[in-house]
């Protein structure tokens, strides 16, 4: 029998039991909807986060020093080991375009003239090239050593009277001391610029590490040579000649550094990474005395760092897929069950068909088609429901909507496979029905 005819006949018998067929597909609908909704969320989350790595960020290598097996993403277990001298030496390396420290400065409040807003950690200290020129819509990059800042729109707009280039903000640091910054530039949007910050939109003020980080660090004793938290290690590495040189009156040490390669080519990135590591781990660096045997310099691109985030996301995704698989299993048992009922109910019809010349494979095909239709209907409904749920979820957490269309195809294939698996036994039972018995069946 021609498959189109099987389809026509099977569709008829499904339509003959609308409610029953609809209920039968429910397990499949829920399973597929869960997967599609979650995958939509995942893909949108990824687009929201990874999509923000502009091509220019791709040549940045983000570094920190931690024990080799520390887990938990950027800066996990990081120790402040990098000095400004180290960074200057790294920047002079052949494969390196630029190198600077990175630090988040704890603030209490920020005032624009009379108006003051509370802001906890919105000040980010880094090098000038951290904010790429093309992302500055107004003004320019700040200069190292100057009391200047670039703000993002969220930071500029949080005051009644919007901040504009040329304004001066007064910042109350966590320790209570006041410092001033002159706004010299405004960025194009409020998303984070690197994985160190995170990519979510929030008010941020970008300042040079010198003077802002240097001041705060010496005030709090962070990373100062001979400071309490680094004393032991500095003792261990004390035999190096370079070590003594760095302990010059409380020089600030950075927890995090950013090294820019010549280009985003993997070869250039690797070269920059390699020469930076070589230098930092050599006796010539200030960092080496603190690295000791325990700490290792980690240098990763944002893509690599996001890979770790991706791992977490994948784990969650596998979990949801596992639950969905159970739902699909239950769904296919439901289909198998209804198909068995249907085969029994239609014993007489099967007998008639066989008596008038239906081959076993015709009957098999007919019932298999029916269960595949049920599976596919479940998959289509589930996909629709999942896409709607995914859309609502994405709207709710305010991410760019990305539909993982390949999963729609996968869902339909899953529907077909589930239909075949669930229908196989009932269809086989139908096919081997003895027509004489079937015709006698009441």
């Amino acid at each position, binding site marked *: 029998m021609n498959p189109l005819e099987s389809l026509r006949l099977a569709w008829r018998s499904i339509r003959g039991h609308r409610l029953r067929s609809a209920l039968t597909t429910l397990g499949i609908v829920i399973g597929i909807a869960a997967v599609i909704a979650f995958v939509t969320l995942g893909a949108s989350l990824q687009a929201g986060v990874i999509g923000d790595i502009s091509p220019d960020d791709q040549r940045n290598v983000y570094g920190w020093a931690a024990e080799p097996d520390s887990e938990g993403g950027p800066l996990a277990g990081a120790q402040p080991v990098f000095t400004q001298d180290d960074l200057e030496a790294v920047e002079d390396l052949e494969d390196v375009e630029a190198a600077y420290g990175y630090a988040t400065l704890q603030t209490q409040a920020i005032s624009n003239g009379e108006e003051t807003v509370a802001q906890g950690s919105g000040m980010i200290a880094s090098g000038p090239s951290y904010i790429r020129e093309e992302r500055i819509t107004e003004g320019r990059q700040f200069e190292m050593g100057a009391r200047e800042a670039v703000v993002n729109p969220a930071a500029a707009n949080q005051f009644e009277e919007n901040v504009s280039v040329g304004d001066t903000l007064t910042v109350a640091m966590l320790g209570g001391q006041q410092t001033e910054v002159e706004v010299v530039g405004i960025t194009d949007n409020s998303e984070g610029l690197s994985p160190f910050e995170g990519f979510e939109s929030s008010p941020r003020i970008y300042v040079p590490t010198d003077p802002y980080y240097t001041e705060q660090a010496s005030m709090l004793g962070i990373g100062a040579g001979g400071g309490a938290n680094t004393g032991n290690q500095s003792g261990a590495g004390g035999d190096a000649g370079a070590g003594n040189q760095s302990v010059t009156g409380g020089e600030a040490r950075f927890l995090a550094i950013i090294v820019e390669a010549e280009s985003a080519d993997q070869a250039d990135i690797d070269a920059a990474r390699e020469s930076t590591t070589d230098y930092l781990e050599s006796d010539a660096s200030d960092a080496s005395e603190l690295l000791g045997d325990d700490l290792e310099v980690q240098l990763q691109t944002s893509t690599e760092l996001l890979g770790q985030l991706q791992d977490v996301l994948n784990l969650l995704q596998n979990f949801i897929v596992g639950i969905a698989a159970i739902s699909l299993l239950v769904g296919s048992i439901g289909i198998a069950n209804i198909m068995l009922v249907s085969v029994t109910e239609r014993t007489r019809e099967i007998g*008639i068909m066989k008596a008038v010349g239906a*081959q076993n494979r015709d009957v098999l095909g007919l019932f298999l088609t029916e269960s595949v239709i049920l599976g596919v209907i479940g998959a289509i409904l589930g996909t629709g429901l999942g896409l709607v749920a995914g859309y609502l979820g994405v709207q709710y957490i305010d991410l760019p909507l990305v539909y993982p269309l390949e999963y729609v195809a996968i869902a339909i294939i899953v529907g077909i496979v589930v239909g075949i698996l669930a229908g196989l036994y009932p269809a086989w039972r139908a096919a081997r029905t003895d027509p004489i018995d079937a015709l006698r069946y009441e």
Partner: protein
Amino acid sequence: MASSGTAVSLSNVRKTYRIGEPVHALDGVSLEVPRGSYTAIMGPSGSGKSTLMNLVGCLDTPTEGTVVVGGRDVGTLSDRERTRLRGTEVGFVFQTFNLMPRLNAVENVALPQLFQSIDRDERRERARNLLERVGLGDRIDHMPNELSGGQRQRVALARALVNDPAIVLADEPSGNLDTDTEADILDLFDEFHEGGTTMLVVTHERHVAERADRIIHLLDGKIERIEELDGAGGSQAGSPAGRESGGGDE
């Protein structure tokens, strides 16, 4: 015997069911059904009539002996070949009509051709013609539950004829019909018989059997006797003294 003029031939057919004590539903039956003949089968309940029909209809195979339908020995065929033979050489009409409940009249008639992979339009065309011949030209889109018993049996008859079978098998075809409707169906049988179709009809009722050329009387799985009726068929054979020929295996 020559098979050219023979639609069906059975020789020494035995069908034994073993549920504890073996039951010989058929016990050594030999029979020739000539092409274009009209044969009735009578006998008490349990005498093996339906069993015989199942064998001739290629639904079943004999325990012993041979059943030849359309020139082929049914017992030696594979299941698939037997099904094919059943689809093309045989048409069934049942006491309970056995129409597909979710197919309308024309689709029910066309059903056997579906399994012979005949084109949809061609199927419909042929089914429509047959329905017209059985007087249901105005009912082709009706579902079985929208038809009377007699109309359903006419649909079943049209379906039995759709593949141009060598033989039409009817197992108590008028058992569920009132007298007038029964007469309509039997008239159609006559009409198709006159058109050259071989008819084999099981019945309990003498007046139904008398439409045939001959009556085979079964008893306990054996042919008790074969009663030849006068060619014209029908009512003048009302006397029990039709021409009788010697019984099967006595």
